[in-house]
């Protein structure tokens, strides 16, 4: 028993394991980079890094191909921590190494937490426009909004994943059940031919438009267009089957039991208790050329409670950090009329900064100790030669 423990311990504290993991890590990055042409940046992160085992389909059968990022990173973390625990000595001479490795451990943990917690959104603003929400670049939601009230909208948002699983939704705020009759993660919307077979849709835009399923795309320049046929089933019969799609540009309106509703499949929204108004987007170029020099957005930030009411400037490498969000200048559209801001929610955003500071401090201490030791040794030699 003891010898088994010793074997396990020796395995996890060994430098050979560190080297092997680093080599495997390099191979992983290399292979994932090559695969990026097929899957795009988001796809490879999911397939190669945010997984324990990289799976590859061979003739429709998923087979394990390579250890994934979580496995390699996790083992590296265990390796680092156990080596420290095993070889730990409380002495000044080891302080630098201890600090550097602590920083590295924190960096690995930070990456894990970013992978788990980080959410990316976009906010598009035309000059003068105000928004208090950002939209997900990847995830969509089916929204049913009761717009009867003159001042407020009552929204029920159902994540796209629920539609993908064909779950029937019964929500207390809805007078009907939401039944997914068909769901396509990517589709092409086509005008329906007059001699086409009957549509699944019984009302709305789906009477004239059909969604044809398409293979998922992972290319960076392309976007998937999810579509679904949604039936709103009530106790007194069906309120209709709608075609909803992120490719449709406006919600569809309908009346039910004296209430006015709208239904839409749209990018998932993140509402925040503050709003941003675009005052001006600037696209500066170097004089006499078309070479971009700087992109910046001057915005007005307002909170509902009036705690904040001020102008802010976001430009490249100078994001706005506010209310747990980091808001970056990400792009522009329509001849500089629209600014695109990237909105990132990452509760662990501080960890990489702390870990880098720890590693820097550790290296300074380590090299400093060596330098002082060297100078101490050299000093008597200088004296002797004089």
């Amino acid at each position, binding site marked *: 028993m003891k010898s088994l423990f010793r074997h396990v311990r020796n395995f996890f504290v060994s430098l050979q394991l560190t080297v092997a993991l680093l080599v495997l890590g390099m191979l992983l990055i290399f292979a994932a980079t090559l695969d990026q042409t097929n899957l795009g940046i988001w796809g490879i992160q999911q397939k190669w890094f*945010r997984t324990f085992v990289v799976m590859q389909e061979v003739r429709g059968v998923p087979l394990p191909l390579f250890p994934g990022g979580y496995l390699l990173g996790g083992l590296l973390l265990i390796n680092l921590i156990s080596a420290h625990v095993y070889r730990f000595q409380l002495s000044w001479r080891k302080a630098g190494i201890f600090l550097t490795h602590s920083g590295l451990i924190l960096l690995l943990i930070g990456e894990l937490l970013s*992978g*788990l*917690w*980080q*959410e990316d959104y976009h906010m598009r603003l035309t000059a003068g426009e105000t928004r208090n929400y950002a939209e*997900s670049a990847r*995830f969509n939601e089916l929204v049913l909004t009761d*717009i009867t*009230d*003159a*001042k*407020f*909208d*009552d*929204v*029920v*948002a*159902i*994540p796209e*994943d*629920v539609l993908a*699983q064909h*779950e029937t*939704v019964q*929500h207390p*705020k809805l007078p009907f059940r939401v039944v997914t009759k068909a769901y396509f993660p990517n589709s*092409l*919307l*086509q*005008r329906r*031919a*007059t*001699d*086409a077979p009957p549509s699944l849709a019984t009302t*709305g*835009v789906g009477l*004239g*438009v059909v969604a*044809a399923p398409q293979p998922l795309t992972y290319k960076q*320049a*392309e*976007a998937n*267009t999810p579509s679904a046929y949604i039936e709103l089933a009530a106790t007194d019969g069906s309120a209709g089957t709608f075609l909803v*799609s992120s*490719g*449709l*540009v*406006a*919600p*569809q309106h309908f009346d039910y039991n004296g209430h006015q509703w*709208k239904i839409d499949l749209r990018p998932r929204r993140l*509402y925040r208790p503050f709003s941003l108004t675009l005052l001006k987007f600037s696209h500066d170029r170097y004089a006499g050329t078309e070479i971009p020099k700087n992109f910046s957005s001057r915005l007005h930030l307002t909170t509902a409670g009036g705690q904040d009411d001020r102008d802010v400037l976001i430009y490249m490498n100078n994001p706005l950090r506010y209310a747990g969000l980091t808001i970056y200048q990400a*792009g*522009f*559209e*329509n*001849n500089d*009329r629209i600014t*695109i801001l990237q909105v990132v929610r990452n509760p662990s955003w501080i960890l990489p900064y702390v870990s880098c500071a720890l590693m820097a401090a550790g290296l300074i201490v380590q090299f400093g100790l060596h330098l002082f030791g060297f100078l101490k040794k050299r000093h008597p030699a200088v004296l002797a030669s004089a």
Partner: protein
Amino acid sequence: MAACRDTKISSYRIPKEKDLSLAEPAVPPVGAMPSSSENRTVATVPQADGADLIWTVPWLWKAKPPSAMRKGSYTVGDADAGEAVGDLSITAFPGDVGGERANVNRWRGQLQLEPLAEAELSRVITRVTQNGLNLSIVDFVGGPASHGQRMIGVIVPFKGATWFFKFTGPEAVVAKAKPAFIAFLETVKPASDPVANASVSALPIPADTGISPIAMTNTVVPPEAGPGLAWTAPTRWQSKPGSVMRKGSYIVAGEGGVTADLSITAFPGAVGGELANTNRWRGQLGLPPLAESELEAAVTRLNANDLAFTLVDGASTGADAKRILGAMVPYQGAMWFFKLTGPDALVAREKPVFVEFLQTVRPSAGPRP
């Protein structure tokens, strides 16, 4: 990641939001039309100032989601069939965007070609007027020798903005798709032009003649490619504005408002030969194809101004019978087609005039008969 992938249904109350300006749910502007009756789709791209251009793309071209800067974006070619494909981007910017030369040279730069001087521009630009638009077309091949890239770029000034249609891809891909691209350019028109809108219908897919339909109908011989033919048309034939495809175009009017259409086109090479072209025209009339041995008896040979015409005359049957009077003549490595189409009676009446007209056809530098 876990937070993003949750399936939690949320509900909340928000201050009233306005929808987009569209009162009705709108069909997305781009998409394909796979049904046999409608094989093209019209894309309308609104501009901020309300001035639009619209166009019609072959259904094989896949619409890509427009990216930040693009008005339209298509994959040209059949990617599903495993073919290499080209990219068509449609963009528009206010003003003249630096002018024609700057833009042409920008494109040349992308292909690693030397910039051109102002005086050299006219050599590379083909200017075409159609649907009330002035198109400046350039066609460049460049890039590294190992994988040559070709670009057909079109600059269209329209209502204070400049539209760019840029078709790029591997040289062979662009060369193959050029006829289809030129045919596509014919469909570009102002969205607000009701006359143009009414007159543009889906591009027809010609009858199955065994010849590439695109090569038969849509290839254009650029004017600067070589010497052309000239002719003298009867004054009562009404000239129509030329288009990318047509070298010449006339309306022949008859009694009671009926009209026939004379088109003059030219394509490089033999375009399938006499038999294939004769049968293509017969196919358009619903007539059965001829065998090789039957061809000689079905055509009339005519020589004029050192040109050897092959004249084909065919008519469909029925209440509204149509007649095609076609003449083909090889000239300087290209095949020229003169085709008069219209109601049977009108075209039959016009035949002597048409034959007389053919005798005025001559090399453009030649003497006027």
